[in-house]
């Protein structure tokens, strides 16, 4: 039963299934799956009539056969709690999830959460090997399994990662794990010009060292990182960070190599943080994308080699930026004094075009309430959107699950606009 806040908090997965089935046959209220509430601002706003269905009580570790290097957990497990359990066995999920102490694994999967280490280790789609979900009409289904290699049936794990809670309720996931490194280091260097950084990034892509993260920050992001981590990072227009992990021998050897390469590439000063000192840096770098008080947060993805151009353009437009530079994934926060959606769109428009020209896309991840309609949240439609809409319709023909929030809503909007014009 929904409690008096209107929230439904099932204690078990079958209970969730029964409630969804009853809702689909009865009241047919729109349903919004809720995990740790760290990413609910993504996309379009939720229908205010929605019942929030929270996974907070679905928090069991179902099975952790450490020697198989897999773990099966319910969707409501906090990511940090999972990582703690894995650490005891010298293992981890090498994906950075923002606000990991609050975020649930189900929410992380639904929003395809990731951070700096995506350069070295990929993203959640590379680790979810099995999934259990509930459809909006309460059917419980699974795909994949508990073994690391498996091609039986369609890979619905991939479909659910990043589906934004719009296709089905994720109730349980099985993850493939990696060994925990025993040592890590992060080097920071400042640069005056984008061209210098661009050349250096080109060189780093063939370095004998194998960084697991390459981060590029504008001055605003750099200031925040310095303050949060309480580390004396170099100060300059562009701050570049490279991180390595492994055993102490590997790490020291790579620090040596990278230090030389960064200096040869024009860095005047290189600062290294090691082991325990990197902890706060990692979490700040991971959480930065959530954006604090910024009225609008954007995310661009593009060819990695175009990252620096985009970062420079964003800085010039007053945007605070952090780039996962090796991947071409960039987070930006518009200035606090962006007064309205029109002003925001003036800043975003040219960046959106630049992202498109660079083989990618820009989306608005979060904005002030009431600005959604004036901002183009998902940007211009891509060729595969109609198919996404068909997939959504198969799972949720009546649009009861997270209605109006995803790309299918943008498609609907487009076709409505088209009709209006006729």
């Amino acid at each position, binding site marked *: 039963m929904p409690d008096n806040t209107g929230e439904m908090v099932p204690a078990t997965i079958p209970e969730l299934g029964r409630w969804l089935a009853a809702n689909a046959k009865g009241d047919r209220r729109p349903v919004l799956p809720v995990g740790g509430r760290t990413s609910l601002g993504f996309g379009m706003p939720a229908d205010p009539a929605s019942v929030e269905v929270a996974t907070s009580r679905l928090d069991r570790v179902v099975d952790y056969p450490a020697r198989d*290097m897999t773990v099966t957990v319910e969707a409501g497990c906090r990511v940090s709690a999972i990582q703690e359990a894995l650490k005891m066995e010298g293992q981890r999920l090498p994906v950075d999830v923002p606000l990991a102490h609050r975020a649930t694994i189900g929410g992380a999967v639904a929003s395809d959460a990731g951070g700096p280490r995506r350069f070295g280790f990929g993203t959640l789609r590379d680790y979810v090997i099995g999934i259990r979900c509930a459809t909006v009409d309460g059917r419980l289904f699974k795909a994949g399994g508990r073994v690391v290699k498996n091609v*039986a*049936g369609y890979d619905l794990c991939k479909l659910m990662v990043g589906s934004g809670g719009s296709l089905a309720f994720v109730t349980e996931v099985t993850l493939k794990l990696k060994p925990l490194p025993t040592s890590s280091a992060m080097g920071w260097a400042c640069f005056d010009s984008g061209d210098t950084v661009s050349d250096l990034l080109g060189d780093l892509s063939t370095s004998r060292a194998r960084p697991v993260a390459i981060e590029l920050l504008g001055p605003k992001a750099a200031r925040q990182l310095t303050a949060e981590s309480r580390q004396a990072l170099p100060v300059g227009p562009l701050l570049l960070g490279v991180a390595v992990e492994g055993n102490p021998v590997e790490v020291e050897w790579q620090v040596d190599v990278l230090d030389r390469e960064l200096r040869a590439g024009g860095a005047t000063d290189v600062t290294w943080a090691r082991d325990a000192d990197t902890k706060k840096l990692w979490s700040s770098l991971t959480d930065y994308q959530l954006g604090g008080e910024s009225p609008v947060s954007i995310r661009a993805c593009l060819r990695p080699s175009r990252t620096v151009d985009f970062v420079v353009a964003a800085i010039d437009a007053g945007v605070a930026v952090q780039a996962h530079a090796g991947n071409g994934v960039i987070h930006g926060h518009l200035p606090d004094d962006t007064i309205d959606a029109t002003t925001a769109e003036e800043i975003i428009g040219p960046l959106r075009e630049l992202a498109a020209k660079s083989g990618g896309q820009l989306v608005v991840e979060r904005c002030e309430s009431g600005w959604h309609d004036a901002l183009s949240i998902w940007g211009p439609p891509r060729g595969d959107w109609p*198919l996404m809409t068909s997939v959504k319709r198969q799972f949720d023909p009546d649009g009861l699950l997270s209605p109006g929030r995803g790309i299918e809503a943008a498609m609907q909007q487009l076709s409505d606009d088209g009709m209006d014009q006729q």
Partner: protein
Amino acid sequence: MASTQPAPDGTVPVATELLIRFRRLLGDDGVLAAEDELIVYECDGYVVEKKAPDVVLFPTTTEQVSEIVRTCNEFDVPFVPRGAGTSLAGGCLPVGGGVMISLTRMKSILEVNLQDRYAVVQPGLVNLHLTRHLAGTGFHYAPDPSSQGACTIGGNVATNSGGPHTLKYGVTVNHVLGLEVVMPDGQVVEFGGVAEGLAGYDLVGLFVGSEGTFGICTQVTVRLTRDPDAYRTLLGIFETVGDATQAISQIIAAGIVPAALEMMDQGIIEAVEAAYGFGFPLDAAAVVLIEVDGLEVAVDDEAERIIRLCQEQGAREVRRAETEQQRALLWKCRKQAFGAIGRLSPSYCTQDGVVPRTKLPEILEFITDAGERHGVRIVNVFHAGDGNIHPILLFDERDEEQIARVFRASDEILGKCIDLGGSVTGEHGIGVEKLEFMERLFTEDDLDVMASVRMAFNPRGSCSPGKMLPTAGACGMEHIERSHPGKQAAS
């Protein structure tokens, strides 16, 4: 061929008019319709079930593929894509007859971009040709199925192929960034692209491994991976299969993820040694091929740890490949092991199951028992580090009674994989071979949801009917039935 009447077995032959249309589109050279030529296409690497298509087409452009598909739909004829035909699950079997679309003439490398670490290729490109093309650049395409000398990138995408090195680097789906697909209605759609992390559903990830049932892939953007700084290749020699599998479990449990961890048992060693003369000890019960890679400063240490773990499990000896030639020969022996099986038996059936890695000792014991119980000789060569077994069941195709025993043993082994918490296929796919297992692995609801996803891509069911899901095609395709449903083909 010219008749429009249904054939006695109920399949619908391709009409003459259709053939004229195809010849106009592709030229005579792009259309195969003579019975004796079609024989080659009656099966793939899964030889137990056979059915020739009515026609095989060889398009050279995406537009042609699209036009073929539209034409098939116009005439209500099913179609099935085919790469090199090395599928071991009957993925290329033209269930219900119809049109086979061979992608082998679309084999160009369209772009290599090292800066952004991707390559754009056509689906008919042979996997190894991409590897060769990239040699010396410092980058490679990681998925390396043992069949890489023949199989195509399009086939790899459709089956989500693995290979020895996918233990550390991940299977095909982890290395595909974008796809161009001719949808089952003929539309050309692009999924994903050169940038990672595009918003919306991961249709690339969903398409990979869909075994030709979601459309025809006509272009692939693959991710390129840095070559390792250094590697060490080891060969562990064991007195018993149990010792070997224990060693494998110990290595994984110690938190070491080698680049590759492959096992061959005595039966295979014998055949491989006769074929390539590497110098394998013929009296060893099993050998384990182990490759570690990483930084030069770290690989020796990791190799030492592995050697120690092998010794603790009773390895008779652990050899190192001292030269690049030795390493290459070792890998050749492993990857071409299947080719050597001809020395052991006229026919063989390669099974593909998965168990949690700690269950390897148990499943291998079971395989030995199953072989003995059913009087079938079984040899093993497989991706041990992933828990992905490949028992190879030897038989003589002419002896139906033997075939029946092979099926029974296979069934039991795969059933055991399920019981141990594993799967009935790690990389070869469901195809037609393993349809019956789907209901053992999945519930009705699971299968319904999968069927509904297929409806979004392939609502008419005309693209690769009768594959992957045990349900019949979709609406309008009820007339398509397998000419030899399942294993009756052999009995």
